[in-house]
């Protein structure tokens, strides 16, 4: 009998009596701050005042609804206000001092010149080709490096070390330096097998070396993120270490790392602009040429537009792919 009273105390015996909460959040301070952007700040404050009035009258639920409306308007103020003021800042920036910045970066004669665009696109085609070649090679090369770094056992320690040293070296060196060192040095040295390489090919080689080091880390993280039970299941069926990687671990890992992989590839695409440093007539070199001949900086703007236009659709595609796969990968 005494046991039971301990487990379930009688109603009304609790230390603090249960009460209906009459607390109402009016978001008064936030609403006042929201006035910094009046179009949404004013409704925020009005709702907040209304919430206070209703709360005083004891209409608690209506007061809470008004308070929540005030909070919504406050958030609108933050988002829309920031965007509006930033737009205003840009307008000011490009109109200040008789619009000198607009003149320099968006000179009408240049930006509407079909010849200038054609020249830039011709250069940009080189950037795209170099990026595509480098990316295709990096996909394979980086996976190889990652797999080597994850070889098991003491007997593989030396080769693991070699792979790790490669990654450290090329992740630590600026891409532009790798490009300069490999291109000019190798060109002069006339190395066997490499002596017929063009400057563009040396550039691809350099980008592969640099981005291979980055991407191998992405692969490695992906492979390590696959739970060991997947490996155990595959090995228990008799699959070898290599078969397990190929059929079970890597396919899952690759799906998991598509997004960071794309990040690195976008970085690679942008770094193709470094080819201008070794005398390749790609988009940046051509932009510079336009700038010099027209006494403007509009060439840079146009080149930047090309890179952005190339990048945006890629991120959207990968977002969609990642969403599709994430559902399936949750099971297992």
């Amino acid at each position, binding site marked *: 009998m005494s046991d039971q009273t301990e487990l379930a105390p009688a109603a009304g015996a609790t230390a603090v009596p249960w009460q209906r909460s009459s607390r109402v959040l009016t978001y008064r301070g936030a609403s006042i701050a929201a006035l910094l952007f009046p179009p949404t700040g004013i409704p925020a404050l009005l709702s907040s005042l209304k919430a206070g009035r209703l709360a005083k009258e004891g209409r608690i639920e209506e007061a809470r609804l008004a308070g929540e409306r005030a909070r919504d308007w406050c958030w609108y103020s933050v988002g829309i206000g920031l965007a509006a003021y930033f737009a205003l800042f840009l307008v000011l920036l490009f109109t200040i001092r008789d619009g000198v910045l607009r003149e320099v970066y968006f000179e009408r004669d240049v930006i509407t010149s079909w010849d200038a665009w054609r020249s830039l696109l011709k250069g940009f085609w080189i950037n795209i080709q170099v990026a595509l070649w480098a990316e295709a090679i990096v996909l394979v090369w980086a996976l190889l490096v990652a797999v080597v770094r994850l070889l098991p056992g003491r007997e593989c320690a030396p080769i693991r070390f070699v792979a790790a040293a490669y990654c450290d070296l090329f992740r630590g060196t600026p891409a532009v330096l790798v490009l300069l060192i490999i291109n000019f040095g190798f060109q002069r040295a006339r190395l066997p097998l490499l002596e017929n390489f063009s400057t563009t090919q040396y550039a691809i080689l350099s980008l592969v070396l640099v981005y291979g080091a980055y991407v191998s880390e992405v692969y490695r993280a992906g492979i390590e993120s696959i739970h060991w039970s997947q490996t155990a*299941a595959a090995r228990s069926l*008799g699959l070898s270490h290599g078969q397990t990687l190929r059929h079970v671990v890597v396919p899952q890992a690759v799906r998991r790392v598509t997004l960071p992989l794309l990040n690195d590839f976008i970085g690679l695409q942008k770094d193709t602009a470094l080819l201008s440093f070794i005398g390749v007539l790609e988009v940046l070199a051509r932009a510079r040429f336009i700038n010099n001949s027209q006494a403007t900086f509009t060439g840079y703007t146009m080149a930047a537009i090309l890179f952005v236009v190339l990048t945006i659709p890629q991120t959207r595609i990968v977002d969609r792919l990642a969403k599709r796969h994430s559902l399936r990968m949750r099971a*297992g």
Partner: protein
Amino acid sequence: MALLEIEDVHKAFGDNQVLRGIGLRVDTHEVVCLIGASGSGKSTLLRCINALEPIDQGEIRLAGDRVSGRGIDVNALRRDVGIVFQSFNLFPHMTVLRNVTLAPIKVAGLASKLAEETGMALLQRIGLEEKAHEYPDRLSGGQQQRVAIVRALAMTPRLLLLDEITSALDPELIAEVLNIVRQLADEGMTMMLATHEMGFAREVATKVCFLHEGVVHEEGPPEQLFGDPREQRTREFLRHIVEAGRL
């Protein structure tokens, strides 16, 4: 004859000595149930038999051949010894059928068409042929575990290890998995299972081994071990199980 012989097997994870001299013998067509508290070494023992964990000391023999230590062909061993895990571990990026046919094609070198026919026949046996082209995430836990069993069976192992295969399942899904094991036992499949389903162990086992502190503390036919255990520890363990309403 003895299909599997385990002799004085030791296994430690760092300072944690899990197996301290296990000795055990499994004859062809036997169904051996390992029971014991969590941490008594049931799962570790099964993983050692499949060479997923290397053993520190002792010897394991399959049909007379040594299958532990260095210098053995682990992939050949695993063709003969299948294992099913508590957490199913199906490959989430492959269809059910592909899960079943992967090893027969890649390891046993079967032609895909033949492997798929065999796979479909196996899936039909467990009533999941209409799920063959689904991905594992569309299956219930019980269905996934049945597929995992079939995946191991597709390699036609001589010994099947089942590592607490119903522990991760909702209660209403346990029966469908146990029915398959029961069916396999009736067909004469040699099996070793770690389990907490004492009622089931009592029903299908030809031999029950009580593991305690890394050794086989007591073994015997199920009627004797469950009905009249000799050892004090075994009696205590079974008393707890009865109190929990699981026997």
